[in-house]
């Protein structure tokens, strides 16, 4: 059991190094990080605020990205991430370790992000006529298509990436959530399933379906799709 964050930092540095001989198994690294998280949780439960600060530091990016995947707004994601850690601090006494701390933390973050998204969506519905409609009344996917076709002389890979990013925004929310969470590389399928409260098989299907829809839209815009 590591006694400080330094040992974890060392292990993470080893993970990040390029040497194949030094790169540990990702599953082992996750287990080690989870064990250290649990140790920090025990210390925080005993009243060690510094240990809780380390938990925040170690998990803030994963929490923030989950919130960002749901909300698409940096400010909202930051606020939700803060709320998540405040809630976790208040509920930390009740954490028994049945699931990993990170999974528990991400579940709370996702629920808070969804609550925020519902409230934001409700506000948008009151102010905007249609969710995916631009101010001039044009559907966003149509606009993406026309924009892409009008810039045929761009001939840059960035154009495709921009187009894909815009198309991701037009995906159904369930598919988009799964695609973004899986595509970030920060979460395992099991963690995503627990966050979304769906089986792992459903997560994989949603990711696959999202990709299929993206490729179909890209093909309709002139990009190859077999």
């Amino acid at each position, binding site marked *: 059991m590591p006694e400080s964050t330094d040992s974890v930092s060392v292990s993470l540095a080893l993970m990040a190094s390029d040497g194949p001989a030094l790169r540990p198994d990702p599953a082992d690294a996750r287990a080690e990080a989870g064990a250290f998280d649990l140790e920090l949780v025990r210390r925080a439960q005993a009243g060690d605020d510094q240990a809780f600060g380390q938990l925040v530091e170690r998990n803030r990016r994963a929490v923030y990205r989950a919130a960002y995947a749901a909300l698409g707004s940096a400010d909202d994601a930051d606020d939700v991430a803060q709320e998540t850690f405040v809630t976790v601090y208040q509920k930390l006494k009740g954490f028994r370790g049945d699931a990993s701390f990170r999974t528990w933390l991400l579940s709370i973050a996702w629920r808070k992000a969804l609550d925020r998204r519902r409230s934001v969506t409700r506000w948008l519905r009151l102010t905007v006529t249609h969710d995916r409609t631009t101010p001039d009344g044009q559907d966003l996917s149509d606009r993406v298509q026309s924009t892409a076709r009008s810039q045929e002389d761009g001939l840059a890979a960035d154009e*495709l990436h921009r187009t*894909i*990013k815009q198309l991701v925004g037009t995906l159904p929310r369930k598919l988009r959530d799964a695609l973004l969470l899986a595509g970030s590389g920060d979460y395992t399928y099991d963690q995503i399933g627990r966050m979304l409260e769906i089986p792992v098989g459903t997560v994989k299907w949603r990711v696959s379906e999202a990709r299929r829809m993206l490729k179909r839209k890209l093909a309709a815009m002139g990009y190859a799709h*077999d």
Partner: protein
Amino acid sequence: MPAVPGQVESHGAIDQAIDRAVREMMEVDTDAAFRARVLARLETPTPVTWWRTAAVSAVAASLVLAVLVFRLEGPQLDTPSSRPMDAPGTAARNSATGTPPAPGPVLRGTARRDAARPARATTIVAAAPLNANTSVPAGMVVATVAAAEPGSALEALHPIEPITIVPLEPEAIAPRAIVIAPLAPITDVQITPLSQAVDRN
């Protein structure tokens, strides 16, 4: 692997482009002060908690006020029908069992509550107690008179003549004798032979 509209792009290249685009979309992180903001937020009560406490306090204060107002402005006049112990049924039960009512006022006023508020003009109390030695015969309903409290603006009630109720005389029920007439004899049953079946058309 540039991919632009109109160019033929391999399936793998599109997949890679999607992966890269999604990864870029999620390449976000908090700033360095995030931890400090969280810890600062832990030390200060959140506005939600403050509003919740204020709302609970307001509701509690409203309830207390409502109870106080109800006690001050509620109905002050006690009527016999509103007090089960003084209802006419009580006297009737006493008369049926032959138990004389206890000496003293039959109508009980709001002595305890009015003692705390003697200045209320609408309160009627049993200020005219009956003679403690009075014996009331069985079968008689006694009505007493409550006088107005001194200083009250209400006029005192006039005495009421005692009411005498004649006890009910039970009427015996004498049913008439029931006579059952003999049944008539049953005659023999005769069955006529069936006729031959007629061919269907």
